[in-house]
């Protein structure tokens, strides 16, 4: 099984004399019986779709429930004044915008899920704009991080219903951190460490969506996933390492997820979904609208 561990992936790619992203591409293409070019075309299509989804954000839209919409536009207008700086302002705006587009039935790229679709683009798009990264390099980073996601899905889970929000936003954050280290010129060990730090920071996060909808708190949790990934990358590029290797962090996430009560696994029954504010949403019963 190719995605049994990230450390194994690094080791096997080195033994084969392949770059890790390319090793992952070849393994996947072989399994599917498609050519390298066809695989690259599919990945390129995903990256283009992410950028298009970002460009097509419409701040005037509201979701069917009325819970989501418009905050991405507010952040875009405010980003220069952000206490955390303009770059983080852009990241916040991108993450919210993508989450809102998803809630408003616009086209997005699940990465790894629809609920966490804002994390990767919120990290990649502002970074590529700022540092003029060529598309080919981003495609490579996407393969590398798809491999990381594959390991997470194999050893733990990427579904909120199975592992809580840590499995969705946590996984997306780990994947974004690994991709960003690659773009920033870090080593493969640093991609592993950044993913480990990012995931560690979000362990235990429950999936408690109000009325069971992918809106509150999902849209804004994309922000925390994206910003958390960037701080993990900054730490790693400064020389900070993770005491627990990424594969073991992933196992810990899986264990926590398996022991999480069902009310915290996408059932819309616990946590924020059980607050008086959430119950008010249910009383309105927008479903009949």
């Amino acid at each position, binding site marked *: *099984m*190719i*995605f049994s561990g990230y450390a194994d992936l690094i080791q096997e790619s080195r033994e084969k004399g392949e770059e890790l992203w390319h090793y*992952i591409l070849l393994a*996947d293409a072989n*399994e*599917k019986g498609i050519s390298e070019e066809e695989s690259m075309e*599919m*990945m390129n*299509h*995903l990256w283009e*779709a992410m950028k298009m989804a970002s460009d097509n954000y419409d701040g005037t839209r509201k*979701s*069917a*429930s009325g819970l989501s919409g418009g905050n991405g536009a507010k952040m875009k207008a405010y980003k220069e004044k952000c206490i955390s700086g303009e770059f983080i302002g852009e990241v916040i705006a991108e993450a919210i915008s993508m989450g809102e*587009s*998803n*809630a*408003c*039935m*616009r*086209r*997005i*790229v*699940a*990465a*790894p*899920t*629809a*609920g966490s*679709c804002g994390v*990767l683009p919120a990290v990649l798009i502002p970074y590529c704009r700022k540092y003029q990264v060529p598309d080919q390099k981003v495609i490579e980073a*996407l*393969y590398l*991080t*798809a*491999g990381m*996601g*594959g390991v997470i*899905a*194999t050893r733990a889970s*990427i*579904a909120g*219903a199975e592992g809580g929000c840590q499995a969705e936003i946590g996984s997306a954050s780990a994947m974004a951190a690994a991709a960003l280290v690659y773009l920033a010129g870090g080593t493969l060990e640093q991609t592993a460490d950044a993913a480990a730090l990012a995931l560690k920071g979000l362990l235990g996060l429950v999936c408690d969506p109000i*009325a*069971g*909808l*992918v*809106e509150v708190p999902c849209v804004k949790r994309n922000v925390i996933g994206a910003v958390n990934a960037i701080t993990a990358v900054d730490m790693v590029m400064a020389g900070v390492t993770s005491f627990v290797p990424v594969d073991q962090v992933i196992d810990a996430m899986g264990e926590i997820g398996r022991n999480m009560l069902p009310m915290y696994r996408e059932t*819309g029954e616990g946590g924020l979904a059980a607050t008086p504010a959430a119950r008010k949403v249910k009383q309105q019963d*927008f*479903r*009949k609208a």
Partner: protein
Amino acid sequence: MNIFDILGPVMVGPSSSHTAGAAKIGYVSRALLGEKPVEAEIFLHGSFALTGKGHGTDRALIAGLLGMKPDDGRIPDSFEAAEEEGLQFTIGTMALKEVHPNSVLLRLKGEKGRALEIVASSLGGGRIRIVQIDGINTDFSGDYPTLIVHNLDQPGYVAEVASMLSHKSVNIATLNLYRNKRGGYAVMVIETDQPVPEEVLKWLAHLEGIIKVTYLQPV
């Protein structure tokens, strides 16, 4: 493990299970019907019934029945599109027995009069299973070319179909047999690695004892 199940799909939000999966169920159901649907009775079960409206599950199912894929930007407007294309539909709820929480029953009628009843489940990440066809349990994904043959429960039909596929160099990936009762009627569901040629489908449809042939090209 497919890395494009981790990154991707490109889809219309908000939920891979409740929206993208629902659109794919509609799309595969249309392909299984084999003609343009003109009537659809839809019954949502479990989580589909509880949160389907807020997730656009209803609109996604109709969009799929109209031939839209999960990344089609017209999904939010599918009810209006159904009216234009002459698809009449009703959407209700039903408690189905022993199925995944995200499941739906569809009763379809096509423009040439063909009828089909399907129960399908959305498993997450946009992946689906067709779990019942015309009241008989099945278990296939719609990711492979799939041949579904309803026949009388008598000896020889599996051999006939398998030898025809072998003759056309079509490799069988999976094969499952189901029947409603001994000597009643049976369904075989065959997933293949290569597309099944048109002439095989025609030949099968004319074979004595074959009640119905359904063929699905993957989405």
